[in-house]
């Protein structure tokens, strides 16, 4: 059985589910809230004798962990607390932390491939800037643009971040609230207001911007159409070639970060340097051409079935 932890109306989930069913696979689509609060589960650590087989219920059907051949976790399948009124905020916080702790452990205990396996504490918004990653960037000949992190931002913070291709601004604490923008010149675009939450301000180098989607050992994508670029992944892409070395560097980095499915934004400067603007562990496919969508879905199906190797 292949398990997709997601809402059933997620377009990518529907494509995957359809494709897997066509190939004769049993597919279970459910979300963590259903498992944690509606149907239930039992998980033994370390694995015990046969009488104590870890499982979760999908409706009334038990899904033993040992029967799961592949799992993919989607943001739409994330844990959400039931909307019951009787719980105090502190109780709800405790319930959330306990269920989240169980989920992390369960995912790491599964004997099958999990796309993408979460890390303790959650993968940080700028995980690719970490000390460990930076070492790896050097090996791959990739660079990281200058970035300022701040718990709030004023004009002076923005002015200290010099980007020839503009300044990319985004929230650090909540992706849902993320207000990504690229300011052309800090003097002209920045008003006198203060951003009152933690932000990153990234100096975008001048050059061609590439958007890639990485799935297993495949990489697809091309040039971002500049007029359309608002700093996010949600921009139009013109399919184009790029250096095989750049493609390999991106694949190597995704492997290093433990990501099977991800997307990245890269700037190639006129003097041939590659700067990584962003890396996302939950790509959406809606803004990609149908040909790319089909290729990604096909590759994900192979990975979930275990018939495709990783880079």
């Amino acid at each position, binding site marked *: 059985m292949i398990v997709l932890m997601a809402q059933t109306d997620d377009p990518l989930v529907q494509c995957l589910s359809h494709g897997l069913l066509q190939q004769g696979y049993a597919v279970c689509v459910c979300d963590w809230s259903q498992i944690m609060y509606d149907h*239930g589960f039992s998980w*033994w650590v370390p694995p015990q004798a046969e009488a104590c087989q870890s499982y979760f219920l999908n409706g009334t059907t038990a899904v033993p962990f040992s029967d799961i051949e592949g799992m993919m976790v989607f943001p739409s399948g994330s844990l959400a607390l039931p909307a019951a009124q009787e719980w105090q905020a502190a109780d709800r916080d405790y319930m959330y*932390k306990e269920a989240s702790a169980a989920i992390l452990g369960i995912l790491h205990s599964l004997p099958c491939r999990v796309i993408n396996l979460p890390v*303790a504490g959650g993968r940080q918004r700028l995980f690719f800037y970490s000390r460990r990653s930076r070492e790896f960037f050097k090996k791959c000949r990739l660079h990281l643009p200058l970035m300022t992190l701040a718990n709030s931002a004023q004009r002076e913070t923005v002015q200290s971040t010099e980007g020839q291709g503009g300044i990319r601004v985004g929230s650090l604490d909540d992706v849902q609230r993320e207000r990504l923008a690229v300011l052309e010149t800090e003097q002209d675009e920045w008003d006198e207001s203060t951003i009152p939450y933690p932000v990153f301000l990234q100096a975008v180098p001048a050059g061609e911007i590439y958007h890639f989607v990485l799935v297993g050992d495949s990489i697809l994508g091309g040039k971002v159409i500049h007029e359309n670029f608002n700093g996010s992944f949600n921009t139009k892409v013109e399919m184009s070639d790029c250096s095989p070395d750049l493609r390999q560097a991106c694949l190597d980095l995704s492997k290093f970060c433990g990501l099977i499915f991800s997307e990245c934004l890269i700037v190639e400067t006129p003097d041939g340097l590659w700067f990584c603007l962003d890396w996302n562990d939950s790509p959406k496919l809606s803004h990609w051409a149908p040909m790319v969508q089909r290729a990604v879905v096909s590759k994900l199906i192979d990975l979930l079935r275990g018939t495709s190797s990783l880079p």
Partner: protein
Amino acid sequence: MTGPASVLLIGSLKEPMLAYVNQKLARKNVSAVNLDFQQPHGACRISFKIGNCRTPPFLKVDSRTVPLETILSTYVRLSHQMTTASDEVERAEPILQHRALVPHLLNVLPGLVVNPYEEASGNRSKPYQQMLIAKLGFNVPKTLVTSHLEQAKEWFEACRGRVIYKSISSVRSVVRRLNPEDFSRLEHLRHCPVQFQEYIPGIDIRVHVVGTRVFASQIETRSTDYRYPDQESFRTIRALELPMDLQEKCVTLTEGLGLALAGIDLRKTVDGEYVCFEVNTSPAFPFYERHTGQRIGEALVEMLCRGTP
């Protein structure tokens, strides 16, 4: 180096552990830089430059600029957990929101970080951490995490009534024995799963590992959770010299979990085996120091000043 070497302290200096370390650093005349995320939002302005800089990267706290190359090490201690998950609690708490910078800082700061964010988050899920502990060579207790009351009852029977329960996450909970009188409350499992573990009788041992130095304390009590002795129970805590191979195993465990400072909870069984329950990634050790006279804080400050484990 473009300035005096300093140690970065993240958290409120009113927090006892951080105050303790700060005091010890002052006695050694080591400069400390404090990032206080406990203050109301906006009270402390922090910015930090990383990546390809023309000028050396620096950390700016209010009007103070600290070149990153001068930071020897970082010690973080937050009185509440840094979680970015929960909905309304998070939204209602600007201080928590303000702290969203901390994980990013811990990921990117140079020098020794005690402890790095992802590694320190390992005990946010005790069973997850338990799997890592087992891989690093320690015996761990048999555990059931469930939301089904029938399974909890069956486990109780299978363990012949010798079962404890405690939180799954790092939220502090009192470890208690499960009794048949508790069965009526098991229906609440459908709202919140619980971790049940086989009860292992024996003597509690708390091991603090600071870099490669090991400080062990033996705790004897009749309570299930030695941190919360019953009124009638006695509790004695004394320093203990562990066998050398066990000391090495504790250092290997700490390193394997990516930590520089750890509080390892062991129990020595009646058969002389050692079972590891969990590893605290931000241990409050002065309690053990008071009882044993061990100089754990001194070892931590020395490590912070050295900048290596």
